[in-house]
């Protein structure tokens, strides 16, 4: 899923066909982007049904408005941007309406241990700790990390999706990485795997 030129060109090509009313091409876009969009929606909404509905709504809306959207070079970032905006609106409406009812959901990414790969499989328990560490990061840092590592977006694309400056993305990433590196846990993790490797040889 790397952003290679071919990949973007293909999406671009499908988008042009969709613009002319080709639902099959639109389906191909859906097939290509669904996984990423769904995961992203799930991260933001933390509810699989809501995430499913959100992606569905996104595609219907984009199809309906495709004439207005017109030619689109960066198809994938566009879909992610639109999805993010839609979800934020949804959460905002919810907040307005539910001022007095219970806790409010916030767009906050939550990493799970299953998503963390530790080099050394013996230390699986560390996955939980790493996930917890990631989840302690400020919301925007988490989102940058997520889009960068999971969606393999470059900084310019992340800036577009999150609606912030390119430089802000760099700063957020730097801060997040710094915090992760500083964390004692990681040095423990590194030394543990070193010890383990040493004992095996």
């Amino acid at each position, binding site marked *: 899923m790397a*952003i290679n030129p071919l990949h973007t060109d293909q999406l671009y090509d499908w988008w042009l066909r969709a613009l002319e009313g080709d639902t099959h091409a639109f389906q191909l876009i859906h097939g290509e982007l669904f996984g990423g969009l769904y995961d992203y929606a799930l991260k933001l909404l933390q*509810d699989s*049904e*809501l995430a499913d*509905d959100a992606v569905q709504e996104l595609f219907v809306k984009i199809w309906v408005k495709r004439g207005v959207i017109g030619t689109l070079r960066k198809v994938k970032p566009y879909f992610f941007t639109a999805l993010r905006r839609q979800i934020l609106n949804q959460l905002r409406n919810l907040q307005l309406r539910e*001022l007095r*009812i219970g806790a409010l959901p916030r767009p906050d990414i939550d990493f799970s241990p299953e998503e*963390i790969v530790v080099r050394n499989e013996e230390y699986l328990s560390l996955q939980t700790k790493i996930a917890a560490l990631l989840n302690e990061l400020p919301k925007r840092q988490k989102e940058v990390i997520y889009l960068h590592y999971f969606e393999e977006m470059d900084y310019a694309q992340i800036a577009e999706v999150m609606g912030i400056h390119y430089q802000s993305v760099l700063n957020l990433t730097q801060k997040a990485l710094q915090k992760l590196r500083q964390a004692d846990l990681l040095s423990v993790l590194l030394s543990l795997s070193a010890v383990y490797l040493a004992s095996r040889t």
Partner: protein
Amino acid sequence: MDDFSKDNQEEKNELPFGFRRQPVDGRLQEENWKAVEEAIRQGEVSPAPVIGGEVVERRSFRWGRALAAAACLVTVAVGIWWIGTRTGHPEYSEIKTGYGEIKNILLPDSSVVILNANSSMRIPQQWTESGGRQVWLEGEAYFQVQKQPSTVRKFVVHTRQVDVEVLGTKFNVNARRQRAVVSLEEGKVRLSMNGVVTSVMEKKAALVMRPGQVAEVDEDLQTKVNEDRTIGARSGWARHEFHFDNTSLGEIASMIQDTYGYDMVVEDSSMLSFPISGDLRKPELQDLLKVLQVSTNYTMRIRDKTIYVTMH
């Protein structure tokens, strides 16, 4: 774009762990596409700017999770009852809900209506300039009306007792049991009582509501206006939520009768005043009764669409 993907790689190597994406669920993707495709097709097939298509939830009582209605407006369109009237009259489509059923309706102007159980709404088939935006409601509905430039006619909800005139807003109308209760969440609406003839009276009878207000108009067009700090709870049903705040068992019994079609019979009428507080999500009648039994300590049994409430 290419030079950015380079620093992409560099950053990735700096972390002593990697990330793994959960594999995409093929069936989930397929179903999601099917729903999209269906919605798209409905959009293309439906004749001209007729009613935007009635939209129902894909799985009943499913998205309840406190979700804004708009998020679910995608989904399947179902058949609409077209009611032809005599020549010269506009044609209406009527949308009805049965007991325990809630429907989402997308109007041609993109306004959203969530129609509560045991209710019906009549909508002109064509929304013409002269006709304006009007709907006729029996029962209960929650409205999110799209703002329009002032040149466009106002949005009007007609009920037996009162007409609610709207400028882009969110509000709930409960027109059950010979009265109308309008709760305004956002924006501004004007109520004009029906049956008032003279124009002078009409002006007096009109009432402009502010957000947070609840207006109750009874059979004799007597109007009571109250502030409700938990106004959002009035439309809780639209999110499949019940919100009880010192609500009497009697009031809940009326609600159950209105939305589920079950009567409640109590052993002793004093039981009807039992106050109940609490929030409930995605309730089926069974769940609701379970909660009521626990909080009241009464025993409730269902027989022949009737709930029998006893002390033990």
